[in-house]
C-alpha cells in the first residue's frame, strides 16, 4: 500500500511538471488558435539563457531571471513581428508547421549562443527527499514539491490575470472571437505579443524546473512531446484541464510502468500516455474540459 501511495505521489509530481509545459500550449492556443509546437524548445531556450546569464555574465539569480524574462518578451515581440503578423488568416496546419520551423530556429539559435553541452542549473531550489514524508517511509522529491507549489501559484496568478485585469479581459475576448474582438478595438498584435510573452514566462518556469531536475540539455525540448497527451486529455482550451490532465497522465503513466510494464517488456512510458489520452478521446472528442465542438454546415 505504501508503495502504491509512493508511486501515485511521484506520478502526481511528474504530472505537475508536464502541466507546466502544457500550460504554455493552452495559453497560446486559447488566444490565437495556434498549436505552438515550439513550446518545448522555448522552455529549453529560456533555461539555456538563464544558465548563460548566470554562468557567463556572473549575474545573481534574481537578475538573471529578470534578464531571461526580458529576453522571452523580446522574443515574443520578434515572433509576432516576423512570423505571426504575416500568417494571419492562414489555415491552422500552416501555422502549426510554422511553429515547427520556429522550433528549429530557436534550437539552432540556443545552441549557437550558449553551446550544446549539458549544463547544470542551480538556482537554490531545495533538492533531495522531503524529510517529513520520508519518516513515514514515502520518498517524495523536494524539487517536485516545489514545482507543484510553483504551478499552483502560477495558475492562481494566471486566473487572476485572466479574470480581473483589463488585459485579461481582452485576451478572453480574442479567444472567444477574433473578429468581434477586433471590432471593439482590441489590437490583435498587442494581444499576441502579450500572450506569447506570458507563455514564454511559463516556458521559463518549466525550463527552470526541468533544468534543475535533469540538467539543461537538448532533451528538454522533447518534453513538449510529453505534454501533448496532457493537452488532448485536458482539452486544448482549458487551463484547469492542463493541470488535471497532467496529473492523470503522470499518475497513469507511473502506475502503468510499475504494474503493467513488467508484463510487456517495460519502457511503456513513451506511448502509454498517448494511448490513455486516445481512450479518453473516444468518449469525449474535445478532451475532458475542452469547449464542446459545434459543427455547422
Amino acid at each position, binding site marked *: 500500500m505504501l508503495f502504491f501511495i509512493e508511486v501515485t505521489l511521484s506520478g502526481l509530481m511528474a504530472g505537475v511538471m508536464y502541466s507546466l509545459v502544457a500550460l504554455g500550449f493552452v495559453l497560446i492556443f486559447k488566444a490565437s488558435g495556434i*498549436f505552438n509546437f515550439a513550446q518545448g524548445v522555448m522552455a529549453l531556450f529560456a533555461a539555456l539563457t538563464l544558465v548563460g546569464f548566470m554562468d557567463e555574465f556572473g549575474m545573481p539569480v534574481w537578475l538573471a531571471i529578470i534578464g531571461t524574462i526580458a529576453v522571452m518578451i523580446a522574443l515574443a515581440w520578434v515572433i509576432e513581428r*516576423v*512570423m505571426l503578423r*504575416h*500568417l494571419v488568416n*492562414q*489555415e*491552422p*496546419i*500552416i501555422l*502549426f*508547421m*510554422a511553429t*515547427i*520551423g*520556429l*522550433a*528549429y*530556429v*530557436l*534550437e*539552432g*539559435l540556443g*545552441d*549557437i549562443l550558449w553551446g*550544446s553541452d549539458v549544463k547544470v542549473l542551480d538556482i537554490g531550489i531545495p533538492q533531495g527527499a522531503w524529510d517529513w514524508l520520508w519518516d513515514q517511509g514515502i520518498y517524495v522529491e523536494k524539487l517536485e514539491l516545489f514545482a507543484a507549489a510553483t504551478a499552483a501559484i502560477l495558475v492562481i496568478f494566471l486566473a487572476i490575470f485572466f479574470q480581473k485585469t483589463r488585459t485579461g479581459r481582452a485576451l478572453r475576448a480574442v479567444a472567444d472571437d477574433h473578429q468581434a474582438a477586433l471590432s471593439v478595438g482590441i489590437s490583435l498584435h498587442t494581444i499576441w505579443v502579450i500572450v506569447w510573452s506570458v507563455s514564454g514566462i511559463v516556458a521559463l518556469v518549466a525550463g527552470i524546473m526541468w533544468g534543475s531536475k535533469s540538467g539543461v540539455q537538448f532533451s528538454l525540448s522533447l518534453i513538449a*512531446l510529453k505534454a*501533448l*497527451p496532457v*493537452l*488532448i486529455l485536458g482539452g*486544448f482550451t482549458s487551463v484547469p484541464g492542463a493541470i488535471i490532465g497532467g496529473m492523470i497522465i503522470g499518475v497513469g503513466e507511473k502506475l502503468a510502468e510499475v504494474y503493467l510494464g513488467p508484463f*510487456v*517488456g*517495460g*519502457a*511503456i512510458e*513513451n*506511448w502509454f500516455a*498517448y*494511448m490513455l*489520452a*486516445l481512450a479518453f*478521446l*473516444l468518449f469525449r*472528442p*474535445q*478532451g475532458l474540459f475542452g469547449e464542446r*465542438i459545434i*459543427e*455547422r*454546415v
Partner: protein
Amino acid sequence: MIYRETGQFKANYADDQALFPIAQDRYVIYAVLFATFAVVPMILNQYWLNAIILPFLIYSLAALGLNVLTGYCGQVSLGTGGFMAVGAFSIYKLMVAVPELGFITLVILSGIITAAVGALFGLPSLRIKGFYLAVATLASQFFLIWLFNKVGWFFNYNATGMITSPPMTIFGVLVTGPEATVTAKYFLVASIVAVFALVAKNLARGRFGRNWMAIRDMDIAAELIGVRPLIAKLSAFAVSSFYIGMAGALYFAVWLGSAEPTEAFDINQSFLVLFMIIIGGLGSVLGSFLGAGFLVLMPILLKNILVDGFGTDSALAAHIEIMTVGALIIIFLIVEPHGLARLWRIAKEKLRLWPFPY
C-alpha cells in the same frame, strides 16, 4: 503559344478523360520518364545517385502517401515514421521468410501490411478531428517504434536489435545487400516510384479521390451528399499507409541496407515528410516530388556551402543548418503557403495566356 489546349480536339471519350489531357503535359511526362531512365543514370556518378537521387525518390514516395492522407483527405498525421518502420520490418520478415516470391512482390506485400496497420490506426479519425487527431497519430508513432524495439520476433532475436537486408535479385541483378550496384538500385526505385506516382494521380481524380476531397473540404456536407466517412477516411489511411509502407521498405532494404528503429524511423522522419508536402503543396502529386527534392537537396547544399565554402567548423555548421531549415520553412509558409506546386500552377496559367494576356 507553346503551352495551351486550344486546337487540341478530342474525338472520343478516352481522349477526353486522359490522365494528361493537354498534349504538352504528355510530352513533359515522356521527357521526364526518358530523362529518369536514360539520361540520369548515364550522366550522374555513383555519389549523386546514392546520396541524393535515391533518398529523393524514396522520400517522394513517402510524401505521395502522406499527401493522399493530409493533402487530399485533410487528416493530419504525425505517424509517418512509425508506418515507414512497419514497411521496413515487414519486408525484413518477408525477405527472410519467403525470398522466393521476388523482391517487387515483397515490396508490395509490405505495403499491404502497412495499409492494414494504417487503417487500424486510422480508426480514431472517425471520432476525432483536427489537431486532436494529429496528436492521436503520434500514439502510433511511439507505440510502433516501441513495439519494434521490444518484441524480438520482429528483428529475429538478434542481439543488437538491428535489421539487415539480405541480398536479393531481380532478373538476376542484385538489388539489395552491400554488393548491389547503385545503378541497379536506382532503376528499381525509379520504376516503382514512377508507376505508383501515376497510380496516385489516377486515384486522386477518380471516385476515391473525389470522396477524399469532399471529406477534406467539409466532412458533414460530404456525409449529407452520400460520401461514407468510414470508407473514405479508412481508404485514405490505407492507401496512404500503403505508399508510406513501400517507401519505408525501400528506405530500409535498398537505401540504408540496415536499420535500427529508434534512429531510422523516429519522430523527425514524420516531421520531415510533413514538411515536404507542406512546402511542395498539399493535394498535389507534383508537389510531393518538389517538396521531397527541396528538403533532400537543401541540407546537402547548405552543408557544402558552409563547410567547404566558408570553412565553418562542422558542429557550428550543423546548428546553422538547422536554423536555416527552420527559417526557410517559415519564409516559405509566409510567401507561398500553398507550396511549390502552386507556383507551377500560376506559371501554367500565365503560359496559357502568353503572349496575349488580355
